[in-house]
């Protein structure tokens, strides 16, 4: 190919066709509307909305965020307006876009996961579901849906049986071996894997001698975690044959390409949106230039192309 021909950025994630591989990470882009002023939403690969639950949730008390070196901890506590309000108040705006909408969701029990998924599956204008399994599992006390592969397999199987839309399972990095979790999700019928969610961390204020977050611990995101995220995406890529959506500290096109070389079929930008609202578009354009100058025609040639 000549340097001038246009690379093809399209990707397909479990049958869902995306214009380009750049999504927004759940919880960092609201419901899209607040960013309309800064980003041409129609140019995004997909919009992943803030995690939704059956009922609205107040989330954790403040303080909810604290900055750390090259990162931040958040303990929002999954505050959200609930699926019904989302469908009524937020989805109409998103439906006007030509960009696919991916609904991130969670539950406190397997039953809640299934009911939330069914509701989203039956709603027009939602193109795929992303299941956040990094949530405390009420039924099993303090453990988490996303840290025991047997529990992961079970909850994903049940959701899979209940829904028709593409199902993405978003993995927690707080595990010994993420490839086992990725395989559990694949075996249970997931169409794709998202990796990674935040890494659990904690900051203590030495003056007040209290944790900086009202919730004591929070999730670490941002450039600080990027090397860990790239490693985990690489491990998932080698473990499963479904597509992996890579995220964790992406703040430039170079970072996005790094994830793709590690095995990501698509990427999501999270904390980067806070650093600069227009960042997603720069990432898309930067990937295009990289492909052009490296004579890479399609995303398929890029994904997993690292020589490790």
């Amino acid at each position, binding site marked *: 190919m000549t340097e001038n021909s246009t690379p093809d950025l399209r990707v397909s994630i479990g049958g869902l066709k995306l214009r380009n591989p750049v999504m927004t990470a759940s919880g960092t882009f609201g419901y899209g509307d607040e960013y309309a002023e800064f980003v041409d939403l129609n140019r995004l690969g997909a919009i992943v909305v803030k995690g939704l639950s059956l009922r609205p949730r*107040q989330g954790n008390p403040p303080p909810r965020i604290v900055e750390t070196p090259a990162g*931040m901890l958040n303990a929002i506590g999954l505050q959200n307006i609930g699926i019904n309000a989302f469908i009524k108040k937020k989805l109409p705006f998103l439906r006007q876009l030509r960009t696919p909408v991916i609904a991130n969701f969670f539950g406190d029990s397997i039953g809640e996961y299934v009911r939330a998924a069914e509701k989203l599956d039956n709603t027009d204008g939602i193109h795929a579901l992303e299941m956040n399994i990094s949530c405390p599992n009420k039924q099993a006390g303090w453990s988490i849906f996303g840290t025991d592969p047997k529990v992961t397999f079970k909850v994903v199987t049940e959701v899979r049986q209940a829904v028709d839309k593409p199902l993405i399972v978003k993995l927690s990095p707080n595990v010994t071996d993420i490839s086992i979790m990725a395989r559990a999700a694949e075996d249970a019928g997931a169409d794709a894997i998202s990796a990674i969610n935040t890494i659990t961390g904690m900051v203590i204020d030495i003056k007040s001698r209290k944790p900086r977050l009202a919730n004591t611990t929070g999730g670490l995101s941002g450039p600080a975690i990027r090397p860990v995220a790239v490693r985990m995406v690489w491990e998932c890529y080698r473990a499963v044959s479904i597509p992996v959506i890579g995220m964790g500290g992406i703040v430039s096109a170079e970072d996005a390409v790094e994830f793709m070389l590690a095995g990501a079929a698509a990427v999501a930008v999270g904390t980067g*949106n806070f650093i*600069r609202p227009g960042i997603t578009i720069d990432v898309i354009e930067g990937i295009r230039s990289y492909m052009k100058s490296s004579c890479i025609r399609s995303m398929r040639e890029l994904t997993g192309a690292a020589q490790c």
Partner: protein
Amino acid sequence: MSRLFTATVTENRRIIKDHYLITLHPSGKIKKPGPGTFFMLDVNTGFDPLLKRPFSLHRWLGRDFQLLYRTAGKGTYLLSKKRKGDTLEVLGPLGNGFPVRKKAKNIMLVAGGIGIAPIIGLAEALVPSKSVIKKGGMHKNLPVLFYGARTKNEILCTDDLRSLDMEPIISTDDGTLGKKGNIVNVIKRYLTAHPSRVRDSVFFACGPTPMLKALSTFAVRHKIRGYAALEEHMACGIGTCLGCVVQTSRGHKRVCREGPVFPIEEIIW
């Protein structure tokens, strides 16, 4: 008129120890910021610090604007090192500022420490220009400013206040200027002495949390309306991260979006 723009530093002056006044020149026309709204500034080169830093509008100069800030940590330290000609990425104006109604009677402005920053801009918006005053009459409606600081040397913006013809009622923790002690106690005594002022009055306040909390308790008890500018750690500044919420009687509200200025009686301290 995007709310994400580049601005050039035209001045960044140390006023007193740890306090700076920065003047920024946006590369294009920006949305006119109201008193109490804020901007987020990108102060770093690498990713530490990571997030933009929020600062209230101090003064709007028509196209340029000024921020008044105190160095607190890494971010403000880096900001204080910016020199004339340096450029910064800026997001703003953001949030809902003070509800400025020029006709309101008995306006009481309350500033604590660096909380004076937005109060000056608010005073300028509220105070009729000198020419109007000269033509007579409106002088009576001049807001009263209560201003508390740690010590005499930290009383800022006295020139600005003078040019507004405002005589602030001052208190300092160490008594080196004005009354000694807490500005809220000064307000209480003032209103006891001027009971007529209580009716139809409204507070506009910015300062440290304990001050705002004491003021709010007092105002609620005496059924005085009031608005306070709150601070909370922020990531996005535009309402998406849900990081900056405060507890209010109407549930969690985002300081960056529903605030930073809230009706004083809604805030749950």
